[in-house]
């Protein structure tokens, strides 16, 4: 089945490859670079928040260069206009160019075909196309940084009317988004068809690893929720390019003058279409992370994951419900009470399956002989962090406390607890866990543990004070961190704590980057252990590390049992491969 015998050119093999494994790694590398960029923007912003209007150390000249290019005045400090750009682009890059591509594009692409025993994705050429469309979208976003007026500066939510009248960067943002949305749509259709059609013989629905389930639900969310945002993006492009008034109400006054447009539009329309995507998007971020954790936890507790069926049903229900809660982001838009009651009820309902999933993971630990490997540490760290993220979401989902908390740092804290220690920890767990599969080399455990402990500490140092500030009423998106507001004064010192945590968090990533590079450069053992973690799923047991060339399997696997048969009584080993008869 392997194609590796006949020579492929460098370009066909590594750049324009149709092999899902190569595409997965392409996604992974690109997305990691974008994550780094998004994080760097944040580190500069944290300087401005801790020490407003003072020159940024180390990269000050770079900030001044960019500010000059964009036409903002700067003496090496981060001017407010550029702060807005950084804020908007931090969110955009982290979510649409970083986390989604790595967790769906990289992990989904690389692992789904291997875990279900398929030779490749269902549409290999389409797969390549989705990566390159994503790449183009990323380039458009990057180019926009160098425009006069800078990149998009209306927040990652791009609310009109502000975004309708913003500088050219916003137009680039919209074009970039159309590319990214198209890429996600193509990629997720591919994943669904692969899972439905290419499961190996005997791989029934209830024998799928939970990771595959999470990718399936996620892909459905992407297919059905992204198009309305694409429609909204097209409307906003029309508003900006052709002067239409989809999002501009009549009589809008800007700078003391009535804006010369026909009016008759509705800013709320954007919010509807945006949040119709963006709420399911939250589950796009977290569900595949949960999928990774299920694999890691079962493997490292050496026992079946607790409540496999509950996990599957919860994930499916979660996906379904995520379409019914979007207006909890819009409680303050003057909606009727009936509507807010409906949406806060659905919001409370959707927390139930999340809690079930978290509970299943916690109960899986009970009675297990836990191996404290690096991926497991990240999984263990994930549980309380995601728990905090989830619990802090409840007050936001109820319309009354939301009046106080809306648009404060509390929202930022809540969201980052879900996505940063939530999703990013899952991503780290996944990288440490599957790195030996991708390369045939194990990452260094000691460096991994150093990476984990320090990341864990500084993530909390970074996000916990946000909750305190938010409860104190400090608004988000203030370029001076609240310094000009009387009520924020007693919370200002937290800005320094958070900023140092952010920079130290960056330092904590050095062992990780060093570990990656050092391991990649190290010699590979001639015959690496294909299954170093003693796992049961197909990708570990039926193929080499890294898997064979295009085609994955020497012999098409046939599946005989469920995914998590660890410590089965009467077996000679404590793991029973899915393909063992």
């Amino acid at each position, binding site marked *: *089945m*392997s*194609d590796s015998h006949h020579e492929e050119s460098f370009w066909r093999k590594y750049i324009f490859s149709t092999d899902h494994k190569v595409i997965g790694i392409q996604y992974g590398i690109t997305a990691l670079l974008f994550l780094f960029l998004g994080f760097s923007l944040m580190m500069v912003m944290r300087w401005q928040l801790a020490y407003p209007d003072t020159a940024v150390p180390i990269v000050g000249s770079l900030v001044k260069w960019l500010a000059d290019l964009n036409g903002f005045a700067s003496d090496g400090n981060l001017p407010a206009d550029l702060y807005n750009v950084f804020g908007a682009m931090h969110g955009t890059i982290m979510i649409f160019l970083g986390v989604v591509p790595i967790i769906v594009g990289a992990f989904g692409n690389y692992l789904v075909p291997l875990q279900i025993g*398929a*030779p*490749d994705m*269902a*549409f*290999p050429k389409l797969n390549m196309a989705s990566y390159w469309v994503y790449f183009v979208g990323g380039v458009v976003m990057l180019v926009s940084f160098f425009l006069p007026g800078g990149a998009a500066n209306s927040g990652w939510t791009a609310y009109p009317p502000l975004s309708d009248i913003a500088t050219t960067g916003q137009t680039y943002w919209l074009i970039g988004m159309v590319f990214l949305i198209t890429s996600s*749509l193509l990629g997720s*259709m*591919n994943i*669904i*068809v692969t899972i*439905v*059609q*290419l499961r190996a013989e005997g791989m029934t629905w209830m024998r799928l690893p939970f990771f595959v389930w999470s990718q399936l639900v996620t892909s459905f969310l992407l*297919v*059905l*929720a*992204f*198009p*309305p*945002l*694409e*429609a*909204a993006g*097209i*409307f906003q492009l*029309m508003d900006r390019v*052709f*002067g*239409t*008034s*989809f999002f501009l109400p009549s009589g809008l006054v800007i700078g003391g003058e009535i804006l010369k*447009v*026909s009016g*008759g*539009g*509705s800013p*709320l*329309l954007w919010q*509807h*279409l945006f949040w*119709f995507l963006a709420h399911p998007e939250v589950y796009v971020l977290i569900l595949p992370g949960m999928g990774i954790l299920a694999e890691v936890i079962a493997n490292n507790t050496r026992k079946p994951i607790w409540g496999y069926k509950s996990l599957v049903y919860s994930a499916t229900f979660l996906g379904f419900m995520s379409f019914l809660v979007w207006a909890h982001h819009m409680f303050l838009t003057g909606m009727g009470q009936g509507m807010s009651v409906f949406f806060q009820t659905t919001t409370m309902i959707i927390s139930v399956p999340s809690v079930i999933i978290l509970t299943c993971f916690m109960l899986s630990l009970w009675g297990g002989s836990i191996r404290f490997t690096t991926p497991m540490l990240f999984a263990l760290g994930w549980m309380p962090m995601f728990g905090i993220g989830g619990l802090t979401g409840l007050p936001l989902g109820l319309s009354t406390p939301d009046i106080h908390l809306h648009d404060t740092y509390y929202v930022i804290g809540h969201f980052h607890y879900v996505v940063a220690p939530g999703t990013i920890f899952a991503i780290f767990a996944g990288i440490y866990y599957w790195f030996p599969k991708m390369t045939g080399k194990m990452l260094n455990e000691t460096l991994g543990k150093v990476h984990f402990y320090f990341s864990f500490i500084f993530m909390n140092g970074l996000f916990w004070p946000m909750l305190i500030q938010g409860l104190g009423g400090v608004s988000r998106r203030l370029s001076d961190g609240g310094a000009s507001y009387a009520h924020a004064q007693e919370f200002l010192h937290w800005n320094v704590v958070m900023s140092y945590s952010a920079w130290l968090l960056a330092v904590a990533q050095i062992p990780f980057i060093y570990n990656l590079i050092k391991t990649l450069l190290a010699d590979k053992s001639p015959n690496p252990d294909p299954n170093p973690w003693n796992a049961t799923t197909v990708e570990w047991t039926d193929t080499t590390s890294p898997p064979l060339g*295009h*085609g994955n399997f020497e012999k098409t696997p046939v599946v005989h049992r469920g995914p998590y048969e660890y410590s089965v009584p009467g077996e000679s080993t404590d793991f029973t491969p899915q393909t063992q008869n």
Partner: protein
Amino acid sequence: MEIPYNVELREDTGLYNSKLGIWLFLASEIMLFGGLFSAYILLRTGAPVWPPIGEHGSIIHLLKDTIPHATFNTVILILSSVTMVMAWVALKQKNLGKYKMYLGTTIVCALIFLVVKYFEYSHKIHEGFVPAHDTYMALYFTLTGLHGLHIVGGIVVLAYLWGPGISMWNSEPERFTNRIEVAGLYWHFVDLVWIFLFPILYLLN
């Protein structure tokens, strides 16, 4: 390396890969046009008069003149859908000549549709009814424009299947027939969207 179920049906789902793929694509298209229609509903219900009155007054009288064009275009699209499905039947009957004739008709119909659309657009723009004129015009141009882009995309794909793509008929006839079915599903969807655009944009004002 061969991807399984490219041509043959998978037993438990009864589908070949691209059939499922195109339906997922159409599902996302439904949601895309859903977003567009949702905007139409929200903006229309929020407007005091429909179509709104702008700088050049209301489009309503001009619109009455274009009903014959739009009706003609509706018939043309329906016809193209029928010839599309007949092209698929022709392949099932292994009649390549008939296939080329039917698919050719579909492409010609699509081109006629675009030409009529062009005259419609230029007439409106000439009279000052540009997208920025009012929210009706904005919706009109965005919705029909996006639909028009779908027609253009369809023409590209169908022209390929009519011309160079036909070589697959000799090597893998069944796979080629599947391709026509899948392309047809897309084409019928574009027709279906027009069936809704026609009354909401031209008739019910």
